[in-house]
């Protein structure tokens, strides 16, 4: 079953069309990476899902129910962590979670039990200070705790790792990975290594549409032109003569299209002619190269 379905979503800001017919489905139980460059419309899409922004066209379904703008009952299925979460700074994390639980009409005992458990999970169990003095990473972690309090079916995180240092990023990713049995996670990012690290599925947002979507295995398995480049220290003309399809790159290296067979063919030639070189680089099957390829089109 799909927890989130978006069909033909459109949004315009003045003359600028940010989303033009975005289609997206998030399968239940996945950790879904929502990838796109800065300003691609990731936050806009998420705000539309949360009913915080009125779309100009299209429809959104959360757990099979249609999302409405303004008053948004579907939000009871969703836990949300904004890119820069802001809390009532005069409260302690405990007090804040109590407020969250009470606004959701959770029973008192359950609030106490779950807040304790969640604060422990995000590493704020012993925190007695007010939120005022919290670091960005701490706020981000408290944000995950508040988002999970209502046992949501869908956890939406807007760039949860972007503003953090490497340790903070790892902590957040570990937490997201650890909750995957309880909820579906949808998180936006422009950091592809984060996606490769924890996601089961991903989609690339480019030009207001989803350019590519699927499970990580599917995406990595997509056949595409492989290539490699060699930095030679002379003898470039000899190579150019023997391989007319090779291209000279601006940085002085030579690029070849092709996979394993081609590499060995070129290496044979270099060996026979004793052409000195400093580096061979394969452009591997990473998500990064795939997305760069698609986004660059």
């Amino acid at each position, binding site marked *: 079953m799909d927890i989130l379905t978006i069909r033909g979503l459109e949004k315009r800001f003045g003359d600028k069309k940010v989303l033009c017919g975005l289609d997206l489905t998030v399968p239940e139980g996945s950790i879904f990476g929502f990838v796109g460059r800065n300003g691609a419309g990731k936050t806009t899409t998420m705000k539309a899902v949360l009913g915080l922004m009125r779309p100009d066209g299209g429809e959104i379904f959360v757990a099979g129910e249609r999302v409405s703008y303004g008053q948004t009952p579907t*939000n009871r299925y969703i836990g949300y962590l904004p890119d820069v979460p802001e809390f009532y700074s005069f409260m302690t994390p405990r007090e804040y979670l109590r407020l*969250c639980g009470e606004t959701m009409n959770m029973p008192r005992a359950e609030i106490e039990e779950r807040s304790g458990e969640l604060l422990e999970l995000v590493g704020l169990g012993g925190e007695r200070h007010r939120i005022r003095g919290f670091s960005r990473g701490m706020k981000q972690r408290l944000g995950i705790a508040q988002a999970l309090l209502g046992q949501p079916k869908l956890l939406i995180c807007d760039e949860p790792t972007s503003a953090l240092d490497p340790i903070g990023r790892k902590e957040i990713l570990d937490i997201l990975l650890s909750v995957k049995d309880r909820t579906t996670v949808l998180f936006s990012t422009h950091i592809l290594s984060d996606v490769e690290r924890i996601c089961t599925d991903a989609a690339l947002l480019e030009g207001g549409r989803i350019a590519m979507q699927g499970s990580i295995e599917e995406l990595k398995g997509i056949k595409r032109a492989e290539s490699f480049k060699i930095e030679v220290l002379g003898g470039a003309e000899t190579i150019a003569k023997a391989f007319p399809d090779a291209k000279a790159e601006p940085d002085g290296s030579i690029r070849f299209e092709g996979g394993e067979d081609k590499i060995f063919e070129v290496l044979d030639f270099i060996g026979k002619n004793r052409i000195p070189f400093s580096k061979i680089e394969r452009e591997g099957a990473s998500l990064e190269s795939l997305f760069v390829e698609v986004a660059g089109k």
Partner: protein
Amino acid sequence: MRSFFAFFKKEILEFARSGKLTILGILFFAFGVMNPAIAKLTPWMMEMLSEELAQSGMTVTEVAVDALTSWTQFFKNIPMALIAFVLMTGGTFTKEYESGTLVLMLTRGLARYKVVLAKAAVLLTVWSAGYFICFGVTYAYNAYFWDNSIAIDLIPAVLNWWLFGVMTVALTVFFSVIANGYGGILCLTGGAVLAFYLASLIPKLTEYMPTTLMNGMNILVGAVDASDFNACAAITAVITVALIALSVPIFNKKQL
């Protein structure tokens, strides 16, 4: 209902921990003390000035001071307290718009109308508490020094002014869901009160304008009857309810 009270409690906690509750408490108390104090000091001040006044041809006879002098001060000073109150509380919505704290509350299913009503209820509670502290202090001193019974229909006059304050609070709530900035809210609230005041200068409209409720002194000295303010009070109450009722649908559609 529980989520409403949760948000109400949060608002009160915010007022308390930011120190605003203490400041407002001191302020209203101080205004309450000031009214009889000024009345009590008036004869002494006149005496100090009498020599100067005598030189310019005025003779100061004995100045009689009673509870009415103090109540005159009350009605003169309470507008300042209301202005201070609006200045201190006018940012209660905009602070949340700017920081984005409301988004997390609303995305977890807190109904928007509860936000509006809880904030309005807290402002109203704090205003009422402050106002009646000020009134109570003045009343107690007046009773001690003089005699409050010479003021005619004191309670209706005081309630009228309180009702005017309530409407001003409703105005700030209404403009808070329309405007996005603190400055805008203050300007619009001030502008609306000014508009009511200017309209009340037209004799035919005087008895219907909320600002007329501020003329409590006229009741106390018996210049007008308390019942003359009934229409005005009713209109003010209707405006107050309408402002709050309109705030809800507007806030429901507000982009946050």
